[in-house]
């Protein structure tokens, strides 16, 4: 992140040459800065002195040029062109020019340095010896990116698209096909530059090939889509890691996109970054209303749509789709230390921040207001989980079970770990061969030995993963199943640390 200097201690940079009287000086000030107001009489002293010797002093004012009324060379720099050109970060700044080029500068007010720079021995004798300056308006929020676009070269490689005269940029984004159906934030150069402040990675770095068209995706393209999705720059580390995770072969992003099923990438964030960027792990965790959750998940979807070319009705052949295909992103609730987080269970440090990508159709809620024993609650879960896709469906199915606070308390009170609950559920989710349905999930997935006896028990998640996480609000005896197609070797959950 770019540092925002508000107050700076004066310093001097010189070429080592002796101070000289006369010459050309340039001062950058603003009325909103008490130190600038303080030094105005000093600037008048400098002007008198150097004009007498044939030199000039230019006074450039960033906010209100009347501050420099009466000076021979007063300039309104409200557009900050001069301030940008001289890379001003603090006001007042006094620059000494030699042959039209900067020779030395002082920032803030330090009498001895101003005296040294100007060669005027008794300069500013009536003032305090030292006063720090204020932040230059070139560093106001959003201004660095705006000025870089206006006066510099943003260095961004993407094609520029002109919004037709009198058109609304949001409508242009729709017309270009860049939207998922909801309005997007128009990706201007300023906004994209600000988004790129959220990562130290180079805009032209390719982070991977986005399916279905396997298009190289640069950090810059991610930033553009992150702007459109509504991200803040501080979301970028999560966004970039989420995309990289989604591109890991084990996840099978192409398959998740192209399938006729409803599934879509689900992003789960673990570790300190979730709290740092304000992600929601509690009430309405899978719902609307949290910017980080909504925008990070939406960015991945927009990258697949815009960079990869994955669009509904084309490569995306989902029969129903899901509201989750707008965005499905959340943080695991790690507040209660009695259960380790998903990431910790994989071996990551609790201090590490990670992104896990897994496929999900949406959620199915399980309700059990009655059970007070962990065994009873597990039996309730098992009935619901067994019904995923079909009670006899065992192949190519997987799930995450999100347990909310009140249900978790049943297990906490009984001293059951996450692993114990998982073990119990997997035992309950064994299905007799006679109940396994033939067909897509069917008996063809069973070995000869398994099929030999109709009473043989086959795991519901025969080749798919099953995991338990903590999330959701504190009131209500609910849990939620996030189901999906997939299985080991095709579409699997993947986890990647945010570096």
């Amino acid at each position: 992140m770019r540092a925002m200097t508000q107050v700076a201690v004066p310093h001097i940079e010189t070429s080592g040459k002796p101070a000289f009287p006369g010459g050309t000086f340039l001062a950058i000030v603003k009325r909103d800065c008490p130190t600038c107001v303080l030094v105005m009489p000093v600037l008048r002293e400098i002007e008198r002195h150097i004009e007498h010797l044939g030199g000039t002093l230019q006074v450039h004012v960033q906010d209100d040029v009347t501050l420099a009324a009466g000076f021979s060379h007063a300039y309104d720099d409200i557009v900050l062109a001069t301030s940008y050109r001289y890379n001003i970060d603090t006001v007042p700044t006094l620059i000494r020019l030699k042959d039209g080029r900067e020779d030395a500068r002082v920032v803030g007010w330090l009498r001895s340095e101003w005296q040294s720079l100007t060669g005027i021995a008794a300069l500013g004798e009536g003032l305090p010896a030292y006063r720090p300056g204020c932040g230059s308006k070139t560093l106001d929020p959003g201004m660095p990116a705006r000025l870089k676009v206006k006066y510099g070269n943003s260095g961004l490689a993407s094609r520029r698209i002109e919004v037709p005269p009198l058109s609304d940029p949001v409508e242009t984004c729709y017309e270009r096909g860049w939207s998922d159906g909801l309005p997007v934030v128009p990706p201007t150069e300023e906004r994209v530059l600000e988004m790129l402040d959220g990562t130290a990675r180079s805009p032209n770095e390719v982070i991977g090939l986005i399916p279905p068209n396997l298009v190289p995706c640069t950090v810059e393209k991610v930033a553009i889509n992150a702007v459109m999705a509504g991200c803040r720059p501080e979301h970028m580390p999560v966004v970039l890691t989420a995309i990289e995770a989604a591109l890991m072969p084990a996840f099978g992003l192409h398959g998740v996109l192209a399938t006729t099923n409803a599934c879509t990438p689900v992003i789960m964030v673990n570790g300190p970054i979730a709290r740092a960027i304000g992600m929601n792990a509690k009430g309405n965790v899978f719902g609307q209303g949290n910017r980080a959750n909504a925008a990070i998940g939406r960015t991945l979807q927009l990258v697949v749509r815009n960079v990869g070319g994955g669009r509904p009705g084309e490569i995306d052949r989902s029969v129903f789709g899901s509201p989750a295909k707008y965005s499905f992103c959340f943080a695991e609730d790690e507040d209660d230390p009695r259960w380790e987080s998903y990431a910790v269970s994989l071996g990551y440090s609790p201090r590490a921040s990670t992104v896990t990508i897994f496929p999900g159709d949406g959620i199915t809620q399980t309700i059990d207001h009655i059970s007070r024993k962990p065994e009873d609650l597990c039996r309730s879960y098992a009935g619901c989980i067994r019904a995923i896709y079909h009670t006899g469906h065992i192949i190519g199915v997987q799930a995450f079970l999100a347990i909310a606070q009140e249900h978790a308390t049943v297990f906490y009170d009984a001293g059951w770990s996450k692993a114990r609950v998982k073990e119990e559920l997997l035992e309950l989710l064994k299905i007799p061969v006679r109940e396994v349905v033939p067909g897509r999930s069917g008996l063809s997935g069973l070995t000869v030995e398994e099929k030999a006896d109709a009473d043989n028990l086959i795991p519901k998640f025969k080749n798919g993963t099953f995991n338990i996480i903590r999330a959701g609000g504190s009131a209500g005896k609910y849990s939620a199943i996030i189901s999906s197609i997939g299985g080991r070797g095709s579409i699997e959950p993947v986890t990647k640390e945010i570096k």
Partner: protein
Amino acid sequence: MPENILLDPTAETAAAIVPRLARPQSIAGKTIGLFDIAKMRGDEFLDRLDELLTARGYVVKRYRKKHFTHLAPIELKQRIKSECDLVIEGLAD
């Protein structure tokens, strides 16, 4: 903040400028709308086109908006689009 220049979020494989809809190769069998924007003498021009097209056996449908200074209502534009294959609009007097 200037919002008239946007950065392309796509793979940039599609043309930056979307081409106009191609003109039909032939108007044979097409239903032709004649759209009078209510500007002076536009009706004379469109009446004559109507005569010529009808005499040649084309199906012609006529439309008119209330005043040329007002935008055509959405309903009217939707009706023209749903009823015609192509439309001729009398723009100037």
